[in-house]
């Protein structure tokens, strides 16, 4: 879902940069206050894993592929503000070094895949966990959180494209959400599988304070 340069107009670029800068600034502030020593290696591991996993495009229907975003996974393990920091690191590196996602579109990409995906994933996970507990809550919650995070990010991506005049909202919104409803299934399965692995090997990582 990395938006290249050229798709967004100046107003959308400016707005999304401003909102994302505010969001990342607040993430730094919250992390500075609450991030503990125990979370430091996990921050590095999640950024590394999300980068590597994003390279693995999996095929979905009709000659289209998708890859995980990873924000829900980071938000479930470390909390939404930490996830915003991790996603920003990944998206900035992808844009600057790997020319994946435009430089002008970076604000929108951080907003969609960083802020929207992290917070929606985090709160969906918490909602499911308030309804069912234990291993089932973790696995079902992580699937739902991951799917919802992709779906919601695609809605915001579609709105930005429509506002920029790339495509009418009536066309781009159903197209984006339709394809990402499928990609979200992959995100959900991978996120649940990773959390299942964490649960089996290092269940204590799920008990860290979330920021």
């Amino acid at each position: 879902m990395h938006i290249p340069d050229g798709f967004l107009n100046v107003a959308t670029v400016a707005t999304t940069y401003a909102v994302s800068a505010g969001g990342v600034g607040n993430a730094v502030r919250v992390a500075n206050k609450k991030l503990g020593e125990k979370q430091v290696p996990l921050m590095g591991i999640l950024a590394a894993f999300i980068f590597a996993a994003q390279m693995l495009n999996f095929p979905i229907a009709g000659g289209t592929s998708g890859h995980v975003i990873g924000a829900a996974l980071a938000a479930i393990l470390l909390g939404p503000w930490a996830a915003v920091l991790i996603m920003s690191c990944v998206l900035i590196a992808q844009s600057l070094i790997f020319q994946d996602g435009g430089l002008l579109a970076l604000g929108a990409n951080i907003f969609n895949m960083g802020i929207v995906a992290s917070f929606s994933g985090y709160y969906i996970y918490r909602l499911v966990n308030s309804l069912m507990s234990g291993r089932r809550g973790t696995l079902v919650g992580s699937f739902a959180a991951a799917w919802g995070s992709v779906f919601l990010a695609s809605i915001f991506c579609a709105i930005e494209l429509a506002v920029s005049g790339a495509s009418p909202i009536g066309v781009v919104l159903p197209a984006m959400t339709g394809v990402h409803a499928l990609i979200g299934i992959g995100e959900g399965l991978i996120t649940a599988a990773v959390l299942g692995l964490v649960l089996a090997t290092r269940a204590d990582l799920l008990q860290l304070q979330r920021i």
Partner: protein
Amino acid sequence: MKSKWWLISLLICLAVACLSPLASSSPDGLERVAEDEGFIGLAGEAPFQVIADYVFPGMENEALATILAGIIGTLILFGVAYGIAWLLTLRKRQLA
């Protein structure tokens, strides 16, 4: 073992990066929509290229060039995110 979990995890991340040549090369969700709805042509060229499209430049074997790009990126992101998190906890460590 307990203190080394992140080292094992990093090796898993690098192993994932080594699978990157197997990734589907079909357009992703957004590219597919942009093609179908006819606005893919709006996409502009990047003003500069470093390791564009996850292929390390100047290598003949594209699979190896992709793996190398993946390993470099994975290590960079581990280092950057670890470093930022370390800096953000520095104050607390000095207080303790």
